[in-house]
């Protein structure tokens, strides 16, 4: 029987209250939302928090709002809600691509976007999605709020820039014209972690890629932002040849480890192939929007 080690439990009623408890208890306290990553890790003693702060009652953190220049997603928004969101499907379809292959529908009823990002598992899909879309996250602490981009959010495996007394409260997806995005994942079976996954976003104006995002999942110790490939894509018209070059860079710039899901050369191969596929679909979607 797998049971977590003993801990104290508190149910937060306000964001401020949860942050105050984090500040009081220190690094031995952890927030819990869906718990579908944290509880399995606690059962295996890979995580041993002494104090859990349950934030599931913080309804004010559950929303997907469209603003003029961005979409704001509350940290407690569940995977199932992200999957069903017509707004995201229209403005950032990479979300629906990814959500369709994250765990299974029952797990998706519990898991949250904030929990997924803060778990910082390199194989977790939403981290790649948010990195490709050049999202920023809002971190709230006792002193107030700060924002940070996805570049620099991941410090190491399962480690983020979120301080011990901070809570990720919101994810902001910038909205720019000419956008298209897509997620590609190869898994051993339905609902499994990725062998490799790639999120791509492109912004196209007048037939030229003005900006691009390419993020690799399960292909290194953290989610990898393929910045060299992103730079290559900029200011060029989209083409199969260009995408093949970008895929080649992704293949070079990832750092997969061999495991039960596959050897290194296979994973590098997937980095390349999935980058090309994701860029191709993202571009098709961007051009569709341009036509309208």
């Amino acid at each position, binding site marked *: 029987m797998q049971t977590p080690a003993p801990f104290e*439990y508190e149910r937060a009623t306000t964001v401020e209250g949860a942050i105050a408890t984090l500040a009081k208890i220190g690094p031995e306290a952890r927030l819990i939302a869906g*718990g579908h990553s944290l*509880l399995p890790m606690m059962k295996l003693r890979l995580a041993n928090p002494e104090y859990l702060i349950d934030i599931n009652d913080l309804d004010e953190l559950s929303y997907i709002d469209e603003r003029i220049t961005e979409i704001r997603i509350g940290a407690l928004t569940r995977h199932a809600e992200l999957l069903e969101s017509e707004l995201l499907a229209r403005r950032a379809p990479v979300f629906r691509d990814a959500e369709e292959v994250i765990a299974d529908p029952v797990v998706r009823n519990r898991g949250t976007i904030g929990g997924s990002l803060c778990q910082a598992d390199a194989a977790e899909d939403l981290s790649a999605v948010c990195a490709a879309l050049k999202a920023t996250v809002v971190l709230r602490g006792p002193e107030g709020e700060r924002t940070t981009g996805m570049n620099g959010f991941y410090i190491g495996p399962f480690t983020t820039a979120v301080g011990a007394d901070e809570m990720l409260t919101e994810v902001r997806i910038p909205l720019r014209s000419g956008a298209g995005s897509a997620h590609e994942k190869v898994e051993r079976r339905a609902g499994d972690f990725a062998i490799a996954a790639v999120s791509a976003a492109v912004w196209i104006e007048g037939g030229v890629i003005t900006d691009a995002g390419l993020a690799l999942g399960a292909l290194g110790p953290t989610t990898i932002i393929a910045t060299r490939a992103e730079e290559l894509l900029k200011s060029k018209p989209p083409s199969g040849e260009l995408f093949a070059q970008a895929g080649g860079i992704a293949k070079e710039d990832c750092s997969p480890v061999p495991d039960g899901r596959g050897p290194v050369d296979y994973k590098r191969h997937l980095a390349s192939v999935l980058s090309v596929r994701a860029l191709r679909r993202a571009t098709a979607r961007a051009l569709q929007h341009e036509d309208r």
Partner: protein
Amino acid sequence: MEVKITINGQEVSRDVEPRTLLVHFIRDTPGLTGTHWGCDTSNCGACVVLMDGKPVKSCTTLAAMCVGHEIRTVESLERNGQLDPVQLGFHEKHGLHCGFCTPGMLMTTRALLDHNPNPTEQEIRTAISGAICRCTGYKNIVSAVRWAAEHEAATKQEA
């Protein structure tokens, strides 16, 4: 800590450790052993129960997290001696062999039909993709869910 949860419409209260998982709370306290405790890693779906009408894996949910929420287990399906159409479907179409996955399959199906009364085969297969059956190869389970959907629609028309 004192945990009080509404399970199948009945309030159940017990002093438990915060680390008590919902599946054990359900099986130990009211003694409702219909909910099966399977893989313990949120993969197999044998432990699925409904939390406020939505299927969740009770091996990966703390009992403490369920205070203030409505839990429904497989025992709630039969009412006044009448089996739920979902149970009848699994019976009619032989949607099980050993039966270990069945409580989770039934509750997952119940949630699907509450949400989508006329699912396609693909929608059924997606809905049960969080539940593993090592006996049937899923074919009979999909048939059972279809049977339940059709039977339920017919019953509703009659009523």
